[in-house]
């Protein structure tokens, strides 16, 4: 009988835990490797919006062919941005390393190919140090080193988005 009680008690203790309510984060979670920050949403959200992702490139893409070499590596899913409020705290789990470009990508409803990337994707905002110059990249380098790198804040401006051709004109192989 004592054994049964002991086993039952052990099971009850063992069954503690499990998933529980998790308030939306306002800072990088503990035991998290990646980047976190707040995006501030401006402008009018296009009706054709499918989703807005946050992704990170270790090296600024050099051609359209490298557009999808971002982290997290597909088919792992990037962080999505909730557009319900004017600010959103995101967490992006990515491996240790140096990242040249952290940006928000707006995607229009539709199935994606390289050929239609110009019409379906827009850069909607990217991280840039406040003390940086005006260069498009290089001013927002982020280093991840086994913890959550916090305060990677930036603005998503739906009124000032840039298509792929802004960075990679159709005729250009390298920028």
């Amino acid at each position, binding site marked *: 009988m004592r054994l049964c009680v002991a086993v039952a008690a052990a099971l009850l203790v*063992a069954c503690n*835990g*499990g*998933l529980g309510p998790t308030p*939306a984060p306002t800072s990088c979670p503990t035991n998290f490797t990646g980047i976190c920050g707040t995006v501030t949403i401006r402008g009018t959200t296009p009706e054709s919006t499918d989703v807005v992702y946050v992704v990170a490139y270790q090296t600024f893409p050099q051609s359209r062919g490298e*557009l999808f070499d971002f982290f997290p590596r597909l088919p792992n899913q990037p962080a999505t941005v909730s557009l319900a409020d004017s600010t*959103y705290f995101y967490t992006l*789990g990515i491996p240790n390393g140096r990242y040249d470009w952290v940006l928000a990508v707006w995607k229009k409803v539709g*199935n994606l190919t390289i050929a239609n*990337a110009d019409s379906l994707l827009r850069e909607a905002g990217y991280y840039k140090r406040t003390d940086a110059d005006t260069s498009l990249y290089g001013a927002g380098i982020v280093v991840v080193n086994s913890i959550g790198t916090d305060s990677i804040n930036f603005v998503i401006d739906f009124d000032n988005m840039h298509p792929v051709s802004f960075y990679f004109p159709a005729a250009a192989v390298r920028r």
Partner: protein
Amino acid sequence: MLAALFPVALQSQATGVIYGTLRDTAGRPLTAALVRVAGTELSTRPGPDGVYRLPDVPAGVVTLEARALGYRPARDSTTLAAGDSARIDFTLAVEVIHIPPDVFNLEPIVVTAGKREQSLHDVIASVAIVADSQIARRAVTSLDEAVDRAAGVQMLNGQINIRGSTGYVQGLGSRVLLLVDGVPMNQGDRGGINWDLLPVDNVERVEVVKGAGSALYGSAALGGVVNLITRDIPDDAHARVRLIGGNFAGPPHDVWKFRSSTGLEGGADVTASWGRDPFRGALSFGARHSDGYRQQDEHDHWQVAAKGQYRLDPVTRLDVSGAWASDQYLVPLAWCVRGQCDDRGEAYQPFMVDTSGLGDHTVSDKGYATAVVSREPSPNLSWLARASWLRTDFTDYQRAGNDFGIANRFGGEVRGVVHPDHGRVVTVGGEVAYSDVTSDIFGVHTQAEYAAYGEGEHALGGARLTTGARIDFLAVDGGGLTAVVSPRLGVVLSRGRDVWRASVGRGFRAPSLAERFVTTFVSGIRVVPNPNLMPEDAWSGEIGVARPFASDRARIDAALFWTEARRLIEPAFSSSPLQIQFQNLARARLAGLDLSIAAVPLTSRLSTTLAYTYLYARELAQDTAPARPLAFRPRHLLTLSADYSLGAASLGADFRYSSRFERVELYETDPRVAAKVLDLRAAWRHGPLAAHVLVSNALNYIYNLVPRTLAPVRTITLAITWTY
């Protein structure tokens, strides 16, 4: 000259044949039994249908004795004329007995490991058995729930893993072969398994053979084989009604609540049968509705199943069976994360779905028909021929556009089992399968498989050596043949009370038509076909030992296993061109320990079992990709069970622990936890009535095993069975 040509005919003039059945008082066939001619060494065991046959019985007055463990022995006599046959049927009454240790220990008979009847301790591979009594006391509503608690087995959202074989690939390409009464039933298009193909109540037992089984079964038996063995049809008229009802617990936290009412489920299965040789038949109907335990989780299920047997003569039997099931269910998509639903300030809402997928639903019909002719012309020879047809038909209704797939799988097999002399058994056979699919996402394609196999078992002193191989030829869309050879070698050695077993064999899985030809979009990215996919394959081996202990009240079975897999088929993402394609990518190593201890009973009232699997599962380094854990495999899998009997009532519990997956795919940074699930049960019997209550996940432990898919919450189920 004539004597040389017809020795059997001349011999039979001085002898005759006695045949018949062994059944209990309820008409159920007795298989773990012995029929012996009194005063001689002539004896035999009945087949799975309870039918026995004794050839070469000396003519004259013959007395037969029938014995079965737990039943009162019976004797009967007849006068047998030379060259004639006589029938003696036995009905044995239950007898409460005390079994002295070391006197009589009947091992279960299994039929899957060697494609023939074998005592469990003669089998070279590890086998887990789920008996109908275990299925009944768990009061489950689908067969995957019943198989889920078998030692070394884990279901991931309906996808079966035996020693970590499959992982989770969203229903595509199971690395475990499903059989129904020995007939392959993996889908013709996707290669997955429909666990709702058969009514739960129609299954007598489930045999799970672990490790590569392609030497006998060919494609898909890479990680193991699961055989659903349906009930035999007893003598006379019988009926069985099973009513089931239950409710799902609500979310344990107010912030997760998603509906104001309690989720309910209910259903009924009715089976009627009639048996009197030479004909037996059974017919089942069933229906079930479930509200589900989360948002957009409603499910309706209807089914019909039939089975018939016709005994053409004492040694020849025709079995036909079939089933049809129709399901309509809403599709519970990945749970919603912040911003995708009314998240109430939470990072995720595990009971709710992304509002963009609300309303998506699926209609899925599936059915099969089989016919088997089996004949045992002599105790040394038996053969069977079978034909089968499996059809699956689904339509996914989605906002983004509907998808459909209709697939057929036709199969045929001829098999012979020969006992050339005492101590040798040879099994040979040939098998064909033809699959076709018509689908908007898989296209219109066919796949043919032709195979021949042979396996021999030889007694060598105290050991039994098994060698065999199978060759499969695969052709897609009528193209060239791809050959796959799957050898197997094994030995069973009895040393005192220990039975050692060792085996090594090759398993493979041919790519499903879906993996080869799928054309669709996932998360907005094009999935492109790969007609050049090769079969994935693995070498698999194990060393195991079984031994009774504690005065034979308990039995321990331990096995070290090892699998080296290559060319595993996985979806590969490419950024240039932007696409997903199934490719032969990974090499993997899965190794570990499978341990089970059963004390049935431990005391006169208490039975307990423990099953533990330690699994080391690594994807091996390749090119520039480093080694890493295989996704969706737990390092530790533990199942504890106990049942306490109180006369007509009984109480029991199961506890399942599955350690936190080291790696998952799609949402690697999502929170994940170990699974710790406690099930409680109670049963009561009175005459033809039995009631079972199951409280599954009694502590309402909230967890998920596959990405953003909540595992079942606490569910209280009552099943009432009436048997006539």
